[in-house]
């Protein structure tokens, strides 16, 4: 649904989306990287398992929640992609284990 403009810098950061390798540009938020990688829904809601996706990209809507390096419910639009980052889409309520 989204593409990168040609004059932007090349994608040098390697990370993972649900275990699959993806690439991002330095400075991308996780939300931008997910959208650029073709992810449409980043989670299903805790109340009714409805698919949800980033909506505001400015940190106020809390729709872009994903699991990052094992920590759930992180706002993808507020975090930068880092090399080797493991991003996972979420299903329903956050899972916490000891």
């Amino acid at each position: 649904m989204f593409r990168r403009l040609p004059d932007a810098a090349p994608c040098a950061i390697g990370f993972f989306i649900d275990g699959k390798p993806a690439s991002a540009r330095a400075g991308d938020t996780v939300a931008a990287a997910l959208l650029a990688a073709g992810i449409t829904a980043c989670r299903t809601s805790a109340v009714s398992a409805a698919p949800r996706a980033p909506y505001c990209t400015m940190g106020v809507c809390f729709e872009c929640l994903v699991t990052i390096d094992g920590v759930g419910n992180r706002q993808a639009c507020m975090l930068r992609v880092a090399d080797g980052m493991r991003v996972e889409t979420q299903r329903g309520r956050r899972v916490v284990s000891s």
Partner: protein
Amino acid sequence: MSGAIPLKELYDLAVIGAGPAGLAAATLAAELGIDTVLFDEQPEPGGQIYRAITTTPLTDRAMLGADYWYGTHLVDALRRTSVQYLAGATVWSISRDLEIGISLGGAARLTRARRVILATGALERPFPIEGWTLPGVMTAGAAQTLLKASGIVAEVPVVLAGSGPLLWLVAAQYLRAGAAIAAILDTTPAHALTSALPRLPPFLLSRYFGKGMSLLREVRGGVKVARGVTALRADGGDTLSAVTYRVSGGPELSMPAKLLLLHQGVVPNVNLANAIGCEHRWDERQLCFRPVVDAWGQSQVEGVAITGDGAGISGALGAEHQGRLAALDAALHLGRIDRERRDRDGTRHRHALGRAERGRAFLDRYFQPAKAFRVPSAQTIVCRCEEVTAQQIRDAVALGCMGPNQMKSFLRCGMGPCQGRLCGLTVSELIADARGVSPAEIGYYRLRPPVKPITLAELAALPKSEAAIQTVARR
């Protein structure tokens, strides 16, 4: 833990938000010799309007336009001062005695200031339509941020829907970026011009007129525009597949779509001011709640000033002048300047503010969002976090639920992580509509810290007084 970042125990002035108002306020305060800290949750300065101004990957300056690049002056000016600017610092609490809770590098820290200036800006007005929670529906501002900050743009034809200058600006920027716009569905009410007519003369003389006309010309060229849209719906199963709408109450029209961008103006981001206990009042012209402040931004909570779009929408240029006024006032209260100096220096900022605000009264009235898009139909989800519909809210009013705080207890609307940022106005207006009174009588959610989530670990690690420990431990 981020013990590495030095945070003083006490500052003269804490400014919250590094958008135009915050940047200008912090800069002026520092220039007056005030020990100032500037907190902003984003990793770089600029707020939303000048988002990514120091890091944007876009090299063609014409794409975003001169109004955007103007913001570099504000950042450069800040950088020349000794303001301690802490990026990535989320302010989650400010107490009445100005103890400030921030979260920085995953650790919660406390600090204090003698004066605080809130410059937390605005957010897009909620635009509740059926299907607005579907993947494929975003705000126009979100699309603009993705373009500015990451250089990404839609590769499918986009439907833009709503009302207001930003809608046209994003349309223009998208066209410059080579994106395809399937249609612009303009929800500006049919009577808009008539009701805004009395304010037309200053608008015609303002910068907004010329810029607006030029944007319209740029966009209208090849883009299908439907005006007088009175109903809107996003259709789809798991993602958006079509947008359905009516023009002037006519028959339903539908078009396939994968991306719908919604926008119907911006409203003050009131959460922090509300949680501090600042009084807010309903503004019938801007159709939102605004904090009650004096001409310098001072609220009735001693030491707390609110400035920029967070105090009421006046746009980026207005915001920076308001920020300077708030800084002057803080300087007075801190004993740096006397009243005469404050008033004298303030005069030129006030004049600049007046010039920046010229024409806004027209814009406010002309782009007043239609009621149908503020008080939505029955099946529309109002609270996205808790998935509460308009009908459920109306039913609760019928049960005797009088206001948003009772409504919160009844239906959980407003209890999600967004803390009402996307539902608060809709809930207040819905209850007002159901009860046949003004939202002024209904009020708004009563908020408390943390205004942004922090982890329990962060909360647990804060310093505690012996008294606090005793009230819990004795159980």
